[in-house]
């Protein structure tokens, strides 16, 4: 049937029940609460699956305690949900493990990520934990761009990279922490060697 021939029916708009927008309540690990729309939550695969599994109604959302997100603080979660609300309804890239080489950072995202590197680190961590593919893409791209044209010495400072010696010392410390007796045995062995004994026994 063509569009011109389609039957025209007058509709009383007031009679149509308006579907109430569904919101969910989340709580950060520092007890800050956020109300986030259902559509925005779809940007996070982790949260989307969580709310689907919970099967909350609007009444449940109001009556039950907010959903706790234990690993993320309020400051970071605020940025995450701001991003999700701004990008709600947008297509979600398929997470097939591939990495887009060209990632455009939209103006809104650039402003949102105009934060110190400590908070940017937490934002990437949260995007990874909550599986928000596009937020992870843009935030990673911002940090990847920080490497452009830098020397190894500059990169060490920007990314706080330990030197080989520091890595070695950390490895030794971790081994010792795992087995505190190891150092004592080593010292005892060295002491015996100094005293001229070849055998430990």
């Amino acid at each position: 049937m063509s569009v011109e021939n389609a039957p025209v029916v007058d509709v009383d708009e007031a009679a149509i029940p308006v579907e109430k927008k569904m919101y969910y309540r989340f709580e950060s690990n520092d007890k800050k609460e956020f109300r986030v729309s259902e559509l925005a939550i779809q940007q996070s695969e982790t949260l989307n699956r969580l709310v689907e599994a919970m099967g909350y109604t609007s009444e449940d959302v109001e009556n039950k305690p907010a959903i706790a997100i234990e690993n993320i603080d309020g400051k970071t979660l605020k940025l995450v949900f701001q991003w999700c609300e701004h990008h709600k309804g947008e297509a979600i890239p398929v997470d097939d493990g591939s990495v887009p080489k060209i990632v455009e950072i939209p103006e809104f995202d650039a402003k949102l990520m105009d934060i110190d590197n400590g908070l940017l680190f937490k934002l990437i961590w949260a995007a990874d934990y909550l599986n928000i593919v596009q937020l992870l893409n843009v935030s990673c791209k911002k940090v990847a761009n920080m490497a452009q044209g830098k020397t190894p010495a500059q990169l060490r400072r920007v990314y706080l990279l330990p030197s080989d010696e520091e890595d070695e010392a950390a490895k030794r410390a971790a081994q010792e922490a795992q087995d505190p007796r190891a150092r004592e045995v080593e010292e005892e062995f060295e002491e015996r060697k100094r005293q001229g004994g070849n055998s430990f026994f």
Partner: protein
Amino acid sequence: MAEENRKFKLIQLPIVARQKLMKMMDNVDLFELSLCSIRMARYVRALRIEAERHNITLTKGQSSVSVHFRKQPGAICERYRNGPLSLNEYYCDYANIEAGTAAVSKHFQYLFNGPLNIVICPSILRNLDEMFSEPELQKCQTMEICGSEATSKALRSIFRNMRIEKKLVVRPRTNQDYVIEQVWWKSKSTG
């Protein structure tokens, strides 16, 4: 802003996020990152970025080691002689050019897997034994030997353990008869 907050703790990111972030870097920046520590070189290698080809050129007019990529235009190149450098080219100075070449090519090959092409002029090189004793330089896709007369000693240094996969070009005459055994090996193995 506190000093701590200006820095980004790359190595403390979860592995998926860290690898995604590093894969978004240009290859030349990954190369720079690999020079920061053994751990960072290992992280870059773990990204499994394929090189289209590695080139070693040691001739009278040019001394360079380079790595070329399909997905990104240009190459990362280390050169051993002064002159104007283009983008992504580095100048380095080794007292022993053969050892330097081997060290740089080994590092490139460690980071970015790909076939190696070699063009050398043995008559201008003194430490071929040292260079071709490195396992990473004992297998290549193509090899071209150019320049003036190559001594059998030089050829022995090159071909003692060499495996060439596709093409071998030997332009200069040798002062003695020299049998390139690996070519016979190759012919036999391919029937």
